[in-house]
Structures are given as C-alpha cells and as structure tokens.
C-alpha cells in the first residue's frame, strides 16, 4: 500500500480502490476503533482570557524589576507599586554586587549577526547562531572570551587576549582574526598581527594572512585568506575544499532554514561562495558546482543528488 497510507486515510486522501483494499485488511477494524475512541477525548481546559491576565501580572512584576521604559503594561494600583518600589531598592542594593560579578553573554540567533564592544574597546562581530561569554569584572586582569560558533575579533593593544572554544584555544597580541568552532570543525584565520593556536595540546603560530583548520580532530593544511576580512562580514560565506556537510550547516544558520538531503555525499569537498542575503542565489551557488538539485518549500529545502529522480 502507498507510503503513510494511514495518514492519508485519516485525511480522506485514499482513492476508492485503495480504501476498499484497506477495509479488507484484518487490522482495519482496530484502526477504526482507535479513531472513534480518540474522537471522544478532550484536551486540558484552557481559558485564553484568564491566561492573558496571568501573563499581564507577570509582565507587571518583571517590568517593575527592570524599569524598561516604553514597554509598560500598568496593571496594579499605586499603593501596591509603592510596596514593590521599596522592595526594589533593597533588591538593587543586594543585586548590584551580584550582577557585577556575573558573566556577560552575547548571542545571535540564526539569520542574525551582531557587533559587540568589549570593555577595552576591542570589537567582536558575531556570525549567525553564535555565542560569546566573558567576565566584565575580571576583564582588566585577564582578557578571555569563550566562543561557541563563529566570530571575527579586532583586538585592542594590550595584555594577552585569548579565545576559548571546545576544541582549541587561541592567543593573541593586538590583531584581527576569525575563529570558528562548530561541532568538530575548528578554523582560525589571522588577518593582522600574530596569533597562537593551541589545538590538541599542539601550539602553532599563525602570522597575518594564514589559516588553521582541523576537522574531526585532524589538522588539514589550508591556504590563507585572500581578503582583509572574513567573507561573512561582506554577507557571503566562502569555502575552500570543505566537506559539503559544513557548507549546508552554514547555509541553515544564515537563512534559518532546515536542510534535508537525499542520496547526497556529504563528505564531498566544496569550493565556492554563497550569498548570505539572497536565498535563491545561494541555493544555486551550492547546488550547481556539487551537481545537486534542490526543492525549496518555505522553511525547508531538500537537496538531491542529480542522478536520483
């Protein structure tokens, strides 16, 4: 019988012949009974109006905590606000020290990038789907940034500056460089100055205009960059002999889209560039050199190897 025929049956999508054949089967009666019994079930009670009031009460509480101007939903009478205000004064006093010692976190969602300035005026530009964490309080003593994802760094002159990732560490003195660590992919490119990479307990110095790449724990020799800044700063993603898997993952991050593949060799190497702003163009840039076809359907795209129909 045809694929997912039970789903099609419920949706009245079976042809008459298919339906007749399905009714002949021994299981039909059981299926029919399950459907009848489930029709009597009801979901849990839910009253949107009451839920909305709950939410408003929550928002009012939050709002009086962080005093965000312009986002106020005033609900409570003044008398209550006074009591809250008194509590806040106390809370602020207590939390001042606490907040100060908290780590700072900056993150980007898919299809987003952002620029963040560190306390010493060093600049970090975060690519899509990335996160950095650092301690504001300890910044003057040690300049350490933890990174998940990809970011470009413009480091102000000063003491040692290091970037921690799950796979390796990067140290620098006043310079510009890009670090990308995603899953088992780790790439560092130095654009200015000198950086030192620590990967699997081996240290390597990267002068300006060179790159370091390791995939799956293996160091892979690569050419240096052929531009002054990473391509993603110019709304493009560039790859040189990189397994297709990582290229498709980057595509997912840049466009916040789900990629599926059918019969595609994900280890084949990809060399090329795709646009981070034009989805159609990007799809063509990926599919034609890899000899793939694709099917774009809203938030999903499916890549097929060209031989398969």
């Amino acid at each position, binding site marked *: 019988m045809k694929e997912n025929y039970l789903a099609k049956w*419920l949706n009245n999508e079976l042809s008459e012949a298919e339906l007749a054949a399905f009714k002949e089967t021994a299981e039909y009666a059981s299926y029919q009974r399950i459907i009848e*019994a*489930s029709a009597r079930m009801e979901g849990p009670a839910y009253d949107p109006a009451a839920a909305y009031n709950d939410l408003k009460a929550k928002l009012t509480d939050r709002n009086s905590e962080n005093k965000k101007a312009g986002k106020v939903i005033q609900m409570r009478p003044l008398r209550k606000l006074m009591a809250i205000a008194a509590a806040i004064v106390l809370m602020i006093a207590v939390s001042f020290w606490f907040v100060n010692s908290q780590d700072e976190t900056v993150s980007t969602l898919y299809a987003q990038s952002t620029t963040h300035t560190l306390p010493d005026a060093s600049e970090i530009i975060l690519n899509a789907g990335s996160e950095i964490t650092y301690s504001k309080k300890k910044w003057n003593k040690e300049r350490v940034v933890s990174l998940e994802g990809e970011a470009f760094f413009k480091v102000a002159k000063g003491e040692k500056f290091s970037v921690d990732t799950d796979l390796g560490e990067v140290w620098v003195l006043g310079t510009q460089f890009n670090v990308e660590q995603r899953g088992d992919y780790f790439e560092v490119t130095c654009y200015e100055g000198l950086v030192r990479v620590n990967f699997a307990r081996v240290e390597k110095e990267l002068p300006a205009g060179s790159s370091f790449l390791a995939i799956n724990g293996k160091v892979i020799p690569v050419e240096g960059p052929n531009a002054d800044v990473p391509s993603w700063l110019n709304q493009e993603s560039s790859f040189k002999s990189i397994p297709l898997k990582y290229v498709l993952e980057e595509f997912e991050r840049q466009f916040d889209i789900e990629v599926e593949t059918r019969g595609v060799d994900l280890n084949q190497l990809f060399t090329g560039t795709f646009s981070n702003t034009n989805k159609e163009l990007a799809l063509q840039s990926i599919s034609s050199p890899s000899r793939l076809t694709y099917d774009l359907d809203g938030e999903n795209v499916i890549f097929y190897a060209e031989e398969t129909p």
Partner: protein
Amino acid sequence: MNIENHDNVCQEEVFSFLFNAHSKAIFRSIFYKYGNEEKAYDVVQEAFVKLWEHCTKVTPEKAKSYVYTIANNNYLNVLKAEKVRMKYNNSGLEKDRTQESPEYLLEEKEFQQKLDNALNNLPENQRQTFLMNRVEGKKYAEIADLEGVSVKAIEKRMHLALKTLRETIDGI
C-alpha cells in the same frame, strides 16, 4: 484587526491579539508532547514574556513559531527525563450513557484505558501529532508549520503513531 501592518509586536493590541490567537494551540501542543499540564502552562507563559521582552525583533508572522520554539526548548531544558502520565478527558462516553448497555460501557472504558496507555508510550513527536490532529482538529500542514518540519514528516509521524497504537492495543 490587521496585524500585517506592524513589523514588530510591541503594541499591546498586536501582542494580545497574537496571544489570543495562538496561546491555546501552543499550550495544548506542548502538553501533548510532554504530558504535564502545569508545566506546559508555565513554559508557554514564560515564552510569551520573552516575546514581549524581545518585541522589537519579532514580526507578527514569526511570533507563533518564535513562542513555540522557546516554550519547547525551555521544556526540554527543564525535564528531559520525566515520564509521561497523561490524563485525558473522555467526556463523550458519559454522554452516551442512556442509550448503551452497561457491558458496552465497560468494554469501551477498558478500550479507552488501553488507548491511554498506548498513547503514553508513544514517542513524544508522534503523540503530539496524533492528538493535535485528532483532538484539536489541526491539519497536517498546520502541525508541520508549528514544528518546523515538512508535511510529509508529519504524515510519517501520524502513520507511525496509528500503527504503533494498534500494535500496542492488539498486543502484537
């Protein structure tokens, strides 16, 4: 109201419209997946708080999947291991009382119990899809949209859900 004219959800009318339009479906859908009414309610509330706090960054069209994704993620973070023990309301059975024999009612009740157990043992995605379609009357395309997968993937979940339910109930 026409919410398409807004490029964010910071106006209260827009926000409350979206809440009324989507919160129930998101709540039920999270409940069907994880089986705890109270926690499902809380994560949906928290997710709408997030939406309000980040109202400048979200368009009305994206709001539903934004809230659903956050609620779903929060739920996963809170309790990955909690066992599903759902109570379903089976009010229909009671209403039929007058016309049916006690034997029939007992048998139906037993069957309903078997179905409840089988539902509790389904993988969460399949249970969610099955109940959203059967109880909430959502179309495959709507569920696919909420879950961020293809309609075909939802059809597959539905097919497997029904197949597994039957196999469990028939004792295969």
